[in-house]
């Protein structure tokens, strides 16, 4: 008995020609790939937009308008990411045999081939990473050691970069394939019962569309009943879902304490207000969405006191930046900063009621911040302090 040689093993590894489905082919790959590229492009742009809400670059001034903007961009981020999953799987299926192409023998060709494969490995790895970490973030499961937000952002740059490299390499092939009819009659005659490229393409689009319809109800109201797989069914106290409960934030007792006061601080001046004081002030009522980074959103009718009126009590200018602090003792985002541009808008308020009822404790009783076009995590709940920054 002799040990198998490298040649013996190599003979056992399949070659691209061994894969028999004629539904594979560049005509299919280019079409699915184009749709996938569009999804990734939307995901990248909306994702970076969301990132700017968290750490705003100096050249950008956050605006309260359009009211629904973040709801749309982040809803699209999650929708296009979800749509990408079936497309990615079909695309990889269509090129799987190419994994078994034997490397060229030495020299420049080997280096070029190696570089191209490295770019594809980066693209595949980062694509899986983004889709997996994104969908797990939506359900709130973090089985890893890295920071979700920072890593998701950094890997997104790698993904979009390797995607551009991939398009640069494949551009002639893509253009040729998109110009050709998707199926050849020859293939059909050889095996009339086999799935065609057209049927696989149709299947990919059906799956992608269903993935969206079955999950998007968490942000598209008329899909709520249809979206059997959405993470947020859309219900909750006062008809609004909750991200962090009072118990989870450590405010279950402090929020109900009769000694609660809202402190409004401007420099060394502090005004202290009870909830009744707030209710006695002129109230404003607006329909505004809560729109979260996880891609769920829902509009509700809020009423309360505009933040600019509150800081005016302590003598501050309505254009001031305001830091909003919470009673929250557990978890991140216990405070947030509202820029003057948003403070000036009278829809930016400390809400006291939600959909006509006294604010539920899980929605931030005694009062919470609500402002137009603002990510949900910055709509600070259980507020006990407004501090005006010069």
């Amino acid at each position: 008995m002799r040990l198998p040689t490298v040649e013996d093993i190599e003979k056992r590894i399949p070659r691209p020609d061994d894969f028999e489905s004629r539904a594979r082919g560049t005509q299919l790959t280019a079409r699915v790939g184009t749709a996938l590229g569009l999804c990734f492009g939307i995901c990248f742009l909306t994702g970076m937009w969301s990132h700017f809400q968290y750490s705003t670059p100096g050249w950008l001034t956050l605006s309260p308008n359009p009211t629904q903007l973040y709801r749309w961009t982040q809803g699209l981020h999650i929708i296009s990411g979800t749509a990408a999953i079936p497309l990615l799987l079909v695309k990889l299926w269509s090129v799987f045999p190419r994994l078994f192409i034997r490397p060229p023998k030495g020299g420049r060709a080997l280096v070029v081939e190696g570089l191209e494969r490295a770019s594809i490995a980066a693209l595949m790895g980062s694509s899986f990473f983004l889709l997996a970490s994104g969908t797990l973030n939506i359900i709130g499961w973090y089985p890893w050691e890295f920071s979700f937000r920072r890593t998701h952002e950094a890997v997104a740059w790698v993904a979009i970069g390797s995607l551009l490299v991939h398009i640069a390499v494949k551009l002639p092939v893509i253009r040729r394939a998109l110009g050709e009819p998707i199926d050849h009659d020859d293939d059909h005659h050889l095996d009339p019962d086999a799935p065609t490229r057209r049927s696989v393409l149709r299947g990919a689009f059906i799956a992608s569309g269903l993935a969206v319809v079955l999950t998007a109800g968490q942000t598209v109201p008329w899909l709520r009943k249809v979206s059997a797989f959405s993470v947020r069914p859309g219900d909750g106290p006062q008809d609004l879902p909750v991200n962090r409960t009072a118990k989870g934030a450590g405010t279950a007792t402090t929020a109900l304490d009769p000694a609660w006061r809202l402190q409004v601080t401007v420099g060394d001046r502090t005004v202290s207000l009870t909830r009744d004081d707030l209710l006695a002030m002129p109230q404003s009522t607006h329909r505004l969405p809560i729109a979260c980074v996880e891609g769920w959103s829902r509009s509700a009718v809020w009423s309360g006191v505009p933040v600019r009126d509150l800081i005016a009590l302590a003598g501050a200018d309505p254009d001031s930046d305001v830091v909003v602090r919470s009673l929250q003792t557990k978890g991140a985002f216990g405070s947030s900063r509202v820029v003057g541009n948003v403070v000036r808008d009278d829809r930016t308020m400390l809400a006291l009621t939600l959909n006509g009822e006294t604010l539920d404790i899980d929605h931030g009783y005694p009062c919470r911040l609500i402002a137009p076009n603002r990510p949900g995590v910055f709509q600070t709940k259980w507020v006990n302090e407004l501090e005006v920054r010069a």
Partner: protein
Amino acid sequence: MRATRALLLLTGVGFGLWGVWLMRDFTREQLTSEAFWLAGGVVLHDVILAPVVVVLGYGASRLLPGHFRSGAATAFLVWGTLTVTFLPVLSGQGGKPGNDTVLGKPYVLSWIVMTLLLAGWAVGGALWRRRRRPVEVTAEP
């Protein structure tokens, strides 16, 4: 076209390097975990998922009657890719204690219904195709 490709290539490399630069202050522990998740998807796909699908396709093309194949392939494609898409909500993980506004739907039940509907679609499509197709296929001399 040459200029377009060069521009895409350079921009792509630049973006990728910027992504790596953003990780410059990650700890070793964070980077190890990140590397595990970056490689994990590729390995899972290339070593398990893709070969399993190839074997299933090979088996189906030989075992299934002709009029079944195309519809079954599409139904399987839709079922398989949607199952992967919904794995997070089907996993039973995540959610927040005392908060039933997250993950508050019977996902496994919906998945079973989806599976049955797609199986029904495959069978229904096959029956329709058999009825529509003349018998000449089997009646060869």
